[in-house]
């Protein structure tokens, strides 16, 4: 065949791309088939013949949006291509049926394609359906630039004529007939193309070295060993467009003077191997492979060799050894393959994607190519975006795009309520990048700068339920297993590092281990023979750098907060509970009808059982395994029922007396606690039982903190709270109320009289909104309003109230004011699903018909001539891109509205009121008290702190959990030994695991109807009945039971 005939073939077969009859394309990559695309294809074929419709059916490769497979495209002449996603057989039949009709099938429609640029040609399908988004408008594809993936999903990879019809092999024809080999090399050098396998060596330079070798036998190799777990770009490139690879290698062979090429494809990619072999066959049949190609005198044969499951064979010298029939062990370089490679001859190895860029560079020119991307990293790169991300798939973006674009704009965040924690890039040679660094551009250099690498393009997104220590261990296990064993640093070093990490995940680690890991990592990196060893420590070094606190938690607290390392926690519920209550324990004791024991068990871990049973956020339920079967177990309600029942029967007396008797002998140490909220009360409860002399100071008249003055009675009746606080008093805790720090309470005085001070002052200062009109009359702070109402006063507030905010304070305030007969509107700048308030509260508020205005940002408080509030001016917002919190950023629309009102309540967040402390200790930027993570010491060694004052607004359980840990730390310092465990005792109970749990919904407590509750503050929830409680405990799966 002559070069000019390619052009003729292209025109002749244009009809394959733009036929005169309708055509259906079905994505048949491995993931498509894995999701049922083959069944869909068969169904379409059957339907077409049954209905007798004239329609072509074509299998294609993968369009890239793997989360939406199977993908089916429908083309009708003159109309845009319609793209359907997650197509099942029923949809398939409907799509075929719609061909003859006027109306298109609307279900499962993803987008349309009006025109497409194949880079080697352009095609226009048609105009219309403007109401459907264009493919590059949907979040997953927006911003992508398809260079390497220009044909994927739109042509049949098993038909060479499809490839030619879109302009394929034109570049080859032109090169062979009009361009000198040396000029080809220059063009590639000019384009600044760099190796896409990960090392990023300038491709043109590599080619130049080969080209200059004296003629004789030369080889070119395509490295398709893609061993990085999590990366599958190369697989898709070969499965969807094998001719692109062949054309690239042909051009390379011509430029470098090689006559033999080998594609080394890993055995785990059988479809890619099959399609490549078939493509080679077809190319040979057309005279594009073999002898005297296109009459140019070029001889080139291409063989396929399958790898056999050795990750190290991705390294070029190991790959060569593998082809030569030896074990894949790397050899030192120099000599480089370009001078002495396969069978001792000059060899050029490039990654699949590198080869695939070559035809485009020759077609469009180096100037076009290097205009994409950055100065040092030209062109695009294909990435596999997988893991805990909503839109998984293959993403092709110009190099230099930022990580956040990948994860949030294209990926859509996690898609669940969990937050993104890190992205792992570069496979086992790469690193874990934390959220804080997501504005880093993705290219060869920038990621190196933060200790990670771009690698071959794998991007695995991880959320808060992934343990980074486990991730490091996972990669070490992989690398240690794949090590060829030749050099000692890699073989022995990785084995030792793995042993250390394994011990850490089992709770047997020490702080010395971290130093050892860093030392080992350095040695292995510096002295390994090949890149596998040299980069193997990266996952460990990056996680140590960015997630050191997780390692320390595993070592010092013997806890895995993510809930992955199973040796470090009995059950996910217990692990997630900030107080680490032994939940399976008390559930089992209830099952055995041992109510007092159950209560005693909860009390030892939680001094406010009735209170928390009502108001907790129930972190336990968020991780309950039962959720996989039907719904989480309602641990909270069980917990509340237990406390209520014990109190009703008066049985708590005995248990408290027991605790009083058990108090450790007086230590003679005096501890002052400032703050009688959840954290302060908890600290008091444990410190007094440890034998210390405890005094609690608080600025308010009564104890309870936010529990007393922030939470409305319909959620938490005051009598219950007071009862539980009184019990703490009976243990011997002294309370001194109405004492305020900076006023009639001096820190210095306290220091003189105490051996230790614990600050638990909470976060009570409302954040200012900083909008004009904030000082008008009739503007209130949310927590002030709640405080007043909790003290039995009716706030001097108007009748038409607008509340700005979306947290618990805002919702509590709105529901309380509703009960006073006020008209309440709650205004929030984001959407309902983004509200941080408790979900139960939200649904109850909706039932009570609180009015909400979402996507409305407060702009100005409008006052009348006498300075009183008359309206809140809001700006309508629209949801923008997803930000780091995983929520959509509200974007101004420029449209305003005035909401008439006579009072405005600001409840957009709270801060710690820490001005008095600023001189005595270090504070964080936003006013929180800075403490050591494990000792809870402030910058003044005699003063400790915990609760919201340290963390910022959090849940009551979290504040209490922190206080508990702080007490253990304080006691250890005061008494010089670990004594905290002396406050618990062992409980013995049965350990039977339910054998065949049947799905059963969780029990739901009865609540007051809306009518019966909107005009009073009576407690809304009745809690469980006895029967409900007994049923609910049977639902527990006893995940804590281990076999020996």
């Amino acid at each position: 065949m002559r070069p000019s005939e390619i052009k003729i073939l292209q025109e002749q077969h244009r009809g394959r791309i733009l036929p005169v009859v309708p055509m259906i394309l079905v994505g048949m990559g491995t993931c498509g088939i894995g999701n049922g695309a083959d069944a869909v294809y068969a169904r379409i074929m059957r339907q077409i013949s049954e209905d007798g419709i004239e329609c072509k059916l074509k299998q294609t490769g993968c369009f890239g949006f793997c989360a939406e497979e199977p993908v089916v495209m429908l083309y009708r002449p003159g109309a845009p291509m319609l793209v359907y996603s997650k197509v099942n057989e029923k949809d398939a039949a409907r799509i075929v049926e719609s061909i003859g009709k006027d109306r298109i099938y609307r279900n499962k429609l993803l987008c349309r394609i009006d025109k497409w640029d194949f880079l080697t040609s352009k095609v226009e399908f048609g105009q219309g359906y403007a109401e459907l988004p264009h493919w590059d408008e949907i979040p997953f594809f927006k911003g992508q630039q398809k260079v390497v993936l220009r044909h994927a999903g739109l042509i049949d990879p098993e038909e060479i004529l499809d490839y030619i019809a879109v302009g394929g092999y034109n570049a080859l024809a032109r090169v062979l007939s009009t361009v000198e080999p040396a000029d080809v090399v220059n063009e590639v050098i000019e384009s600044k193309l760099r190796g896409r396998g990960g090392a990023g060596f300038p491709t043109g330079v590599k080619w130049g070295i080969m080209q200059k070798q004296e003629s004789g036998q030369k080889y070119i190799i395509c490295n398709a060993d893609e061993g990085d777990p999590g990366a599958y770009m190369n697989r898709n490139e070969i499965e969807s467009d094998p001719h692109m690879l062949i054309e690239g290698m042909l051009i390379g062979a011509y430029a470098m003077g090689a006559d033999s090429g080998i594609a080394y494809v890993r055995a785990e990619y059988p479809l890619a191997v099959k399609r490549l072999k078939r493509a080679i066959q077809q190319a040979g049949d057309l005279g594009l492979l073999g002898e005297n190609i296109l009459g140019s005198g070029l001889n080139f044969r291409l063989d396929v060799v399958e790898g056999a499951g050795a990750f190290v064979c991705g390294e070029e010298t190991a790959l060569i050894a593998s082809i030569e029939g030896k074990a894949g062990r790397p050899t030192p370089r120099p000599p480089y393959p370009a001078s002495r490679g396969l069978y001792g001859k000059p060899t050029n190895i490039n990654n699949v994607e590198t080869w695939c860029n070559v035809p485009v560079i020759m077609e469009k020119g180096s100037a076009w190519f290097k205009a994409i991307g950055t100065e040092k990293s030209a062109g695009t790169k294909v990435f596999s975006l997988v893991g805990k991300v909503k839109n998984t798939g293959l993403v092709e973006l110009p190099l230099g795009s930022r990580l956040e674009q990948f994860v949030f704009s294209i990926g859509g965040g996690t898609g669940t309520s969990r937050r993104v924690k890190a992205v792992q890039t570069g496979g086992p040679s790469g690193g874990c990048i934390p959220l804080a660094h997501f504005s880093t551009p993705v290219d060869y250099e920038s990621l190196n700068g933060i200790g990670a690498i771009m690698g071959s393009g794998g991007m695995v997104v991880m959320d808060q339920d992934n343990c980074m220590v486990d991730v490091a261990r996972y990669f070490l296990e992989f690398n240690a297993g794949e090590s060829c064993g030749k050099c000692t640093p890699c073989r022995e070093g990785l084995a030792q590092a793995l042993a250390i990490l394994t011990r850490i995940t089992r709770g047997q680690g020490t702080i010395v281990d971290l130093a050892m890991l860093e030392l080992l990592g350095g040695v292995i990196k510096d002295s390994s023979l090949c890149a596998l060893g040299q980069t193997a420590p990266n996952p460990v070094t990056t996680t140590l750098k960015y997630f050191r606190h997780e390692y320390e938690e595993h070592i010092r607290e013997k806890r895995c907060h993510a809930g992955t390392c199973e040796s470090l926690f009995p059950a996910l519920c217990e692990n997630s509970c900030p107080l680490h209550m032994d939940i399976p324990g008390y559930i089992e004791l209830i099952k055995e009808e041992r109510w007092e024991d159950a209560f005693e068990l909860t009390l030892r871990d939680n001094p406010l059982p009735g209170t928390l049973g009502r108001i907790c956020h129930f972190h336990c339920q968020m991780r309950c395994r039962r959720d996989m079967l039907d719904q989480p177990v309602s641990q909270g309600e069980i917990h509340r029922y237990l406390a209520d029942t014990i109190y009703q029967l008066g049985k708590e007396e005995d248990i408290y007396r027991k605790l009083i008797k058990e108090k450790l002998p007086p230590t003679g140490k005096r501890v002052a606690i400032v703050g009688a909220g959840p954290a302060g009360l908890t600290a008091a409860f444990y410190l007094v039982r440890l034998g210390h002399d405890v005094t609690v100071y608080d600025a308010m008249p009564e104890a309870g903190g936010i529990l007393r003055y922030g939470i409305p009675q319909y959620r938490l009746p005051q009598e219950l709270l007071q009862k539980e606080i009184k019990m703490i008093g009976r243990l011997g805790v002294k309370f001194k109320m109405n004492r305020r720090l900076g006023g009639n309470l001096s820190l210095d005085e306290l220091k003189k009289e105490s051996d230790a001070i614990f600050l638990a002052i909470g976060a009570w200062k409302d954040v200012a909104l900083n909008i004009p009109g904030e000082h008008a009359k009739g503007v209130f702070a949310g927590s002030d309003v709640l405080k007043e109402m909790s003290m039995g006063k009716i706030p001097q507030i108007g009748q038409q109230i607008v509340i700005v905010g979306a947290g618990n304070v805002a919702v509590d305030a709105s529901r309380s004011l509703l009960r006073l007969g006020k008209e309440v509107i709650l205004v929030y700048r984001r959407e309902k699903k983004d509200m941080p308030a408790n979900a139960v509260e939200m649904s109850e508020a909706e039932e009570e018909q609180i009015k909400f205005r979402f996507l409305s940002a407060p702009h100005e408080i409008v006052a009348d001539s006498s300075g009183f509030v008359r309206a809140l001016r809001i700006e309508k917002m629209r949801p923008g891109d997803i930000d780091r919190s995983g929520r959509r950023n509200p974007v101004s629309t420029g449209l305003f509205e005035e909401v008439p009102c006579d009072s405005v309540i600001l409840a957009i967040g709270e801060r710690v009121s820490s001005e008095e402390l600023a001189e005595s200790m270090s504070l964080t930027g936003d006013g929180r008290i800075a403490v050591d993570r494990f000792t809870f010491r402030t910058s003044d060694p005699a003063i400790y702190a915990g609760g919201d004052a340290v963390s910022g607004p959090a849940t009551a359980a979290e504040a209490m959990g922190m206080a508990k840990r702080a007490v253990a730390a304080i006691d250890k310092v005061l008494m010089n030994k670990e004594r905290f465990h002396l406050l618990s005792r062992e409980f013995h109970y049965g350990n039977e695991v339910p054998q065949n749990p049947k799905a059963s919904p969780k029990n739901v407590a009865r609540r007051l109807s809306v009518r019966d509750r909107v005009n009073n503050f009576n407690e809304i929830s009745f809690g469980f009945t006895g029967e409900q409680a007994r049923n609910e405990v049977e639902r527990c799966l006893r995940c804590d039971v281990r076999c020996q």
Partner: protein
Amino acid sequence: METLINTPLAGEILDEIIEKHRGKPGMLLTTLEEAQEKNPLKYLPGETLVEVSGKLNIPYTQVYSVATFYSYFNLTPQGKHTVVVCRGTACHTKGSKGLLDDVTALLGIRRDVDGADSSFTTSDNLFTVRTVACFGQCAQSPVVEVDGVIHSNVNAQKLLKIMSRIKNGKTEKK
């Protein structure tokens, strides 16, 4: 229960494979791969290795080195059904370790948690459980391949269904 007979490949079949690949790049790898595939028990018996060594004129130690270096090659007979659990990063992130624990427990295989073995066959030779570093199907993690058919988004429930289907005699179609 079937009794398995240890059969190395018949001479002519092996010869055919060897001649097909003789002289091509990577001939040893490709020969061994095809020889294993054509063996009904999907493994490479010692006799096969010896024959390959002799016919290709490659020292036996080198053939043995290659057969033991690459994880793809099995030197022991494989079970009638193969379950491959992917242990790639995306799959691991989504809990494939738990799946591996579950499937081995289901089949009554006792696994050394940190043992070097990555392949386990039940004593009745019905099932072999092995792992693969990555199938390249990361968008559908966790991935489990059973008898050559890839299953995506596998969780414990789905796995149970697949395993019981096989145990009840319904084989997976390729």
